[in-house]
């Protein structure tokens, strides 16, 4: 059919026509304008950015004129850009986008053969867009207490930004976990630690924000990167032996301290009993610790704090953990233990009770009341027994109860070579153990061979003192134990110093005390000592007065007016007492600590007339430069 068509006469004529058309149109088609697709880059961008619209067209010699039609939907306007940047066959129109809108663009080429239109390219600035102030935090030190951080995220686009957050890997708490931010607004995202990190290892934790920001590679943001470790100190959770026990039982708490690149200098365990607080200085050995307390009264005992002192990078630091685990202690009978003090004729009665005991000694047919001293929940009474053989009975009754505890010990006069046999048959003391003659007292429950003396006193204020005199010949040194009120030195243990008294004046001693939360031990010769706090005044700190009070504000009768100062930083102070004429009738300079109610001056009214006075105090971080002053009136009426 085709051959017939081609080779027939008519077909030959048509073939020539077809050939002619081919010869005419193929060159024509070969030299028509060829264009690629018009593209916008980027497609999503912010107002104020520049978009590049590009296309290639060839042969360029055919192009008489090129332009770009741009339609701004929010303005409902069409702009025509003529000045294309031409590089070979590539035509591009960079366009600064000054509006939040959706755009359409089409390239137009005019040739001698006619006008050629490109496809329509779109781009938009009408998008949500996140701006994040990312942070990278290096936390070389792992501890139970680590700071929180916040990161600000702002929507710099024109549409609402929706986001979610996550921790990668887990270990960070990020709040909020999801949310939305309207155009132009911002929100704060908080980052904190929830994971358990072991010292000695490194951790990298990323806080990630994912959003509907359509810009290329802009949908996922790093809010923060935390490089944690490897140094640090961690206290594992605490376990208690019991949470319900009877009075007299021990409670033990167990925990571990894990650390790396730190030196642990002390570990204190603090127990809160129904009406007191006890602090134990735990021996440092290994990572595992335990502390136990003997219960002496009914109520709730709380394992309240673990305080770890450590050295890191040359700094002496402290970590405080508050487990606050409660133990219910129920009532059991009162108890009394006797201790014969070796080398003396004294017996000490140590009583545990929830009520005040009354103590009597029945000795040689004489009933003598023994004064008792209370330390914590323990009462101690000491009795010097007569130098005669026989029995001594110590009896304790308890206020508000019918309970009476009575214990007896025996005295023996060793006159010759005789062994002492005791009724229980378990103990025989050979006669060579004693000089001849000798008075030997024996109490089978407890025998205290210690020959040293431990002095103690209970202090209500840090400035109280203790005075000890050696009863041992020759005079030897003592272990002094001074107790003080925990609140007085809260957070200031490093400031506790020993002061010694000489001719009525107190001097900072070179003795370095072993300070725990409620007491300090030191070793010294006979003398009078006090615990004091020395200030740590920093030149750059500006202290301010929290309170300044006179007690009493109106003194009736002879006595002292005491002035108490509370400041927010250790500082120097100077106090003047003025009468109404402006005369200074009292004066004191000194240093005050960052504690409540420093006693800064005591004024005795004997030197004053009755009337109205004013105390003016100035404080500052140098001895002669005061940054704040305050005055208070007070009255003396003797």
């Amino acid at each position: 059919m085709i051959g017939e068509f081609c080779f027939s006469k008519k077909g030959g004529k048509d073939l020539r026509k077809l050939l002619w058309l081919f010869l005419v149109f193929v060159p024509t088609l070969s030299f028509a304008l060829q264009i690629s697709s018009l593209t916008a880059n980027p497609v999503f961008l912010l107002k104020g950015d520049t978009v590049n619209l590009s296309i290639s067209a060839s042969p360029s010699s055919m192009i008489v004129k090129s332009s770009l039609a741009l339609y701004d939907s929010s303005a409902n306007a069409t702009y025509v850009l003529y000045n294309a940047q031409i590089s070979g066959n590539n035509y591009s129109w960079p366009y600064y986008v000054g509006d939040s809108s959706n755009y359409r663009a089409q390239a137009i080429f005019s040739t001698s053969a006619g006008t050629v239109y490109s496809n329509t390219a779109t781009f938009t600035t009408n998008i949500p867009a996140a701006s994040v102030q990312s942070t990278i935090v290096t936390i070389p030190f792992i501890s139970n207490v680590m700071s929180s951080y916040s990161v600000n995220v702002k929507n710099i686009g024109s549409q609402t930004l929706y986001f979610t957050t996550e921790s990668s890997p887990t270990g960070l708490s990020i709040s909020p976990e999801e949310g939305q931010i309207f155009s132009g607004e911002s929100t704060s995202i908080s980052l904190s630690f929830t994971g358990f990190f072991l010292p000695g290892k490194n951790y990298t934790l990323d806080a990630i924000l994912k959003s509907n920001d359509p810009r290329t590679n802009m949908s996922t943001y790093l809010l923060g990167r935390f490089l944690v470790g490897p140094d640090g100190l961690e206290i594992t959770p605490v376990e208690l032996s019991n949470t319900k026990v009877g009075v007299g039982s021990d409670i033990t708490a167990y925990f571990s301290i894990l650390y790396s690149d730190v030196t642990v200098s002390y570990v204190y365990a603090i127990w809160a009993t129904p009406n007191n607080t006890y602090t134990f200085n735990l021996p440092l050995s290994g990572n595992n610790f335990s502390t136990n307390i003997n219960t002496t009264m009914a109520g709730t005992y709380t394992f309240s704090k673990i305080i770890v002192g450590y050295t890191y990078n040359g700094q002496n630091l402290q970590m405080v953990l508050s487990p606050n685990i409660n133990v219910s202690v129920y009532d059991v009978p009162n108890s009394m233990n006797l201790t014969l003090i070796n080398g003396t004729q004294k017996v000490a009665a140590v009583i545990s009770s929830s009520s005040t005991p009354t103590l009597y000694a029945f000795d040689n047919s004489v009933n003598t009341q023994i004064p008792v001293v209370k330390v914590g929940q323990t009462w101690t009474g000491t009795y010097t027994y007569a130098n005669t053989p026989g029995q001594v009975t110590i009896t304790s009754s308890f206020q508000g109860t019918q309970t009476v505890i009575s214990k007896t010990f025996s005295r023996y006069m060793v006159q010759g070579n005789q062994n002492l046999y005791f009724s229980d048959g378990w103990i025989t003391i050979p006669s060579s153990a004693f000089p001849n003659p000798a008075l030997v007292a024996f109490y089978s429950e407890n025998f205290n061979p210690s020959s040293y003396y431990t002095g103690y006193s209970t202090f209500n204020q840090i400035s109280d003192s203790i005075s000890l005199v050696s009863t041992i010949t020759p005079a030897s040194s003592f272990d002094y134990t001074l107790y003080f009120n925990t609140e007085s030195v809260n957070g200031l243990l490093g400031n506790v110093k020993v002061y010694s008294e000489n001719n009525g004046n107190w001097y900072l001693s070179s003795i370095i005390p072993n300070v725990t939360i409620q007491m300090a031990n030191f070793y010294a010769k006979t003398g009078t000592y006090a615990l004091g706090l020395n200030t740590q005044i920093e030149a750059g700190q500006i202290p301010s007065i929290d309170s300044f009070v006179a007690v009493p504000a109106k003194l009736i009768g002879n006595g002292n007016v005491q002035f108490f100062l509370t400041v927010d930083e250790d500082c120097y102070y100077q106090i003047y007492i003025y009468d109404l004429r402006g005369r200074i009738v009292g004066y004191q300079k000194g240093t005050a600590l960052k504690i409540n109610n420093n006693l800064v001056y005591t004024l005795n009214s004997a030197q004053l007339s009755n009337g109205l006075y004013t105390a003016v105090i100035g404080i500052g971080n140098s001895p002669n430069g005061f940054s704040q002053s305050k005055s208070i009136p007070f009255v003396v009426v003797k």
Partner: protein
Amino acid sequence: MRRALIIFLTLTFLFIPVFAGILDEVDDPSAYGSAMGGALYALYAGPQSIAYNPAGISEGGGGLFFSHIEHYFGTIRNEFLSGTYGFNDLYIGSAIESTYPLNLDYFQYILSGTFAYRMGNNALGMNVNYWMGSDIVNGVSMDFGGITKIGELNLGLVVKNAFASITWVGTVSNVETYPAEIITGLDYSRPSFDLNAFANFTSDEAGVGLRIPLTDFFSVMGGYNVTFGIQQSNSLSTGIMIKNYFGFDIFVSYTFQNLFEFSDTINPLYVSFTYNFGGK
């Protein structure tokens, strides 16, 4: 005259170290006195002289005086109101002085009756003071004063708080007595300046003050006051005096007391007014 001045100055600055239980009162309640370092004891200063030297009221026809001060960062308030009137050479006056603190239940009043007699260049005066207060049952004291002119100097002598005895609501000894205070004052007045000084030998207080009149109606003043308690207390003062402003004399002073100790003056501002009834 020079010998008298030397003796006076010697006495003024030779303090007897007496630190007795003197009466606790505001003894410098006027802005004029504060600006002059407290040295108004040889001046005829009108109604405010009741607080300094009662003989000083015996000039002019009398007047009214009011002053308000806030001591020690404002914790102690003091008001002094006085009035005088002259009958030829005899002058009478009265005053009430109240002192009270902020935030504390206490107040004390001193009611004063004053007589003064002018004899040319000399004058004598006397206050009888009655004490009342929240913790005071009653009390009396008397002040005696004199001013005499020697050459170009006015010399003042005051025996303050003589026979002073106050019954307090106390527990130890209800009646408290106080020593009489010996005070001398000096005034050296020239047309271009007015120099004053005083010394209280009993309470160990002293002061000097200088007033320079710039016009007939306007003066500037400066003063220095020192007290010797167990520590020295210093005050530097400055002030202005506006005379006869619609019949009023206005005194304003600013005092820098122990400025260096506390980085701030503890007794800054005094304001006083005097209304003159008109001179004779």
